[in-house]
């Protein structure tokens, strides 16, 4: 296997958890809700996903457990922000703190255990093709699902009536409410969807990326996913591009360390975080003149007047 091929395969693997979590958050934010708890939902997805897989021996059941964990946490978030009109920023932070603690509690018993990593697709002729074979036809299920998910979200948002309603709710909840759309119900569904995606993104880490669980193994990926949504201007296509770009930065850092260029390893590890800050600044600056493209009702509490 050539070096470039190996790098591309590892970039895709590093990008997939970001893409899964960010795609879910994009839908949440398009409905006008800012859920900052992505990191908490991801780490819970990782812990529960690993637990599910370890107990049953099935990657698929593990992934479902991860999704369920993400949904469960996002339901708590929805109850607070949609049901009780709590500040979304504060509730999102609480969700992350809770998720990190709970995942440590659940995962404590599984530290040091190993599972069989998710199987990779194998097609007799196609996977054997030089260069593109492994990249296109030799990935695990998570990777294919993440690509399908982004395409599906694009189709849903721009080609279906329900997607139009969801965007309307995110851009002006008062107007959508006046037209008779159930704003809170739509947002609840979006938040649950985002929770499931974040949980799956987290579950990818112990199920496919490294076949074991370490407390805090998401290492800020949830926050990077949030930054990706801003980076993408809330558009699915750009989101995918951004996720692969960040995956590339992560892998570049690993390779630079392996080559031992004399750069402190800490600086290389800090790269994805620094890149996030720089990208946010560049994106925000470029947008300065054109005005914000964020959903207009993003993060604003909605209490229907009856």
């Amino acid at each position, binding site marked *: 296997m050539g070096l470039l091929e190996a790098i591309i395969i590892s970039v895709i693997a590093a990008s997939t958890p970001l893409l899964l979590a960010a795609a879910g958050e994009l839908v949440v934010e398009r409905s006008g809700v800012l859920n900052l708890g992505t990191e908490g939902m991801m780490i819970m997805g990782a812990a529960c996903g690993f637990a599910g897989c370890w107990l049953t021996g099935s990657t698929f059941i593990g992934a479902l457990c991860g999704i369920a964990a993400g949904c469960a946490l996002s339901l708590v978030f929805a109850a607070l922000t949609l049901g009780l009109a709590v500040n979304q920023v504060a509730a999102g932070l609480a969700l992350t703190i809770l998720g990190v603690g709970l995942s440590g509690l659940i995962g404590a018993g599984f530290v040091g255990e190993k599972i069989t990593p998710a199987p990779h697709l194998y097609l007799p002729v196609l996977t054997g093709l030089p260069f593109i074979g492994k990249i296109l036809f030799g990935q695990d299920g998570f990777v294919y699902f993440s690509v399908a998910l982004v395409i599906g979200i694009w189709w849903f948002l721009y080609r279906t009536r329900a997607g139009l309603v969801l965007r309307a709710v995110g851009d002006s909840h008062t107007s959508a409410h006046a037209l008779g759309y159930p704003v809170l119900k739509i947002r609840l569904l979006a938040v649950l969807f985002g929770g499931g995606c974040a949980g799956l993104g987290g579950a990818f880490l112990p199920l496919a990326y490294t076949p074991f669980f370490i407390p805090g193994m998401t290492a800020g990926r949830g926050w*990077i996913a949030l930054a990706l949504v801003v980076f993408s201007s809330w558009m699915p296509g750009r989101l995918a591009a951004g996720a692969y770009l960040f995956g590339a930065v992560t892998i570049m850092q690993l390779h630079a360390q392996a080559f031992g260029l004399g750069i402190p390893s800490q600086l290389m590890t800090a790269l994805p975080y620094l890149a996030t800050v720089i990208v946010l600044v560049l994106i925000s600056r470029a947008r300065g003149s054109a005005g914000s493209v964020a959903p207009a009702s993003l993060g604003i509490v909605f209490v229907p007047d009856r």
Partner: protein
Amino acid sequence: MQLVLEKRVERSTKIAILSPLLAIALTLVTMSILFAILGKNPVMALYVYFVEPLTDSFTLMEIAVKATPLVMIAVGLSLCYLANVWNIGAEGQFIMGAVCGSYLAVVTNGTDPGPWVLPAMLVMGAAGGALWAMIPALCKVRYGANEILTSLMLVYVADLIMDYLVRGPWRDPKGMNFPTTASFDPVATVPTLFETGRIHWGALAALIVVALATVMLGRTIKGFEIRVVGAAPRAARFAGFNSKKLVVFTFAVSGALAGLAGIIEVAGPVGVLQPGISPGYGFTAIIVAFLGRLNPVGILIAGLFLALTFIGGEGAQISMKIPLDLTKVFQGILLFYVLACDSLILYRIRLIASPKKAAHGTA
């Protein structure tokens, strides 16, 4: 039948006082259930967590030691949150304060430089925290970058900078290759208040911070400006308050306080710069700020309460083998209940027969 929120005509003062207490009560109930699930006796566990630390003078002082950084950071954060500025990177500002202040302690180590070292360290610690906080503040006011994400990303960067220093240039040559600086000289150490125990002058500094913040918020134009910009941005613009300057100001103050807390922690109870100087003070302080209702005196009480959970959690781990992560779970659940109960100050929850009928009834 359906539950709906109804805006109160006036904020309920009764619930404003009751809400943190209600939140704590609900958290304790939830914790009891969790203890039972873990197979521990809930009554025993709650006793070990919340009562036992209060029965011993040593642990009482430890609570004050842990509350010191929490209160200092949370007071700074409360100014940000009151102004609707979301600094959640206090953990990074805490670390950078510790790093910048430690610089002097490291370079003067073993040279007996004189009593100026400690005050200079404290100044450098506060400056380091404030400068680190300036990055997200300036990114926000100059380019409009979201301060939540930038301030948080910088936590990871600060942690890695410290890691690099204590493993590389600042490592104690006699430290058996452990990632730590040499122990600070006595002149570079915050003195303890009493002969026994670890309670130090930093605890008094935290009290002074609470007093100053109370005066500033209640008695000065700046405090008024902070509250107006946060509560009514439009009105603040009409009043001529510059919200960008306020972003820089609140970030600078909260960064300086977090940095000061960092250097006091390192030069006080810890005594060296090493990884893991903070068990997440910067994040727990967010909970402290909200539990204290963004009010300095409230924060003092909330800080002591959360310090109690740290100490109680350690005790429960030793005597009952309860995992330390439960303390974080406890803190997360507490923040949820605090936020939920706060909602009752502004809204009334009503049970109505059916949403359609009610809409006709009140319209």
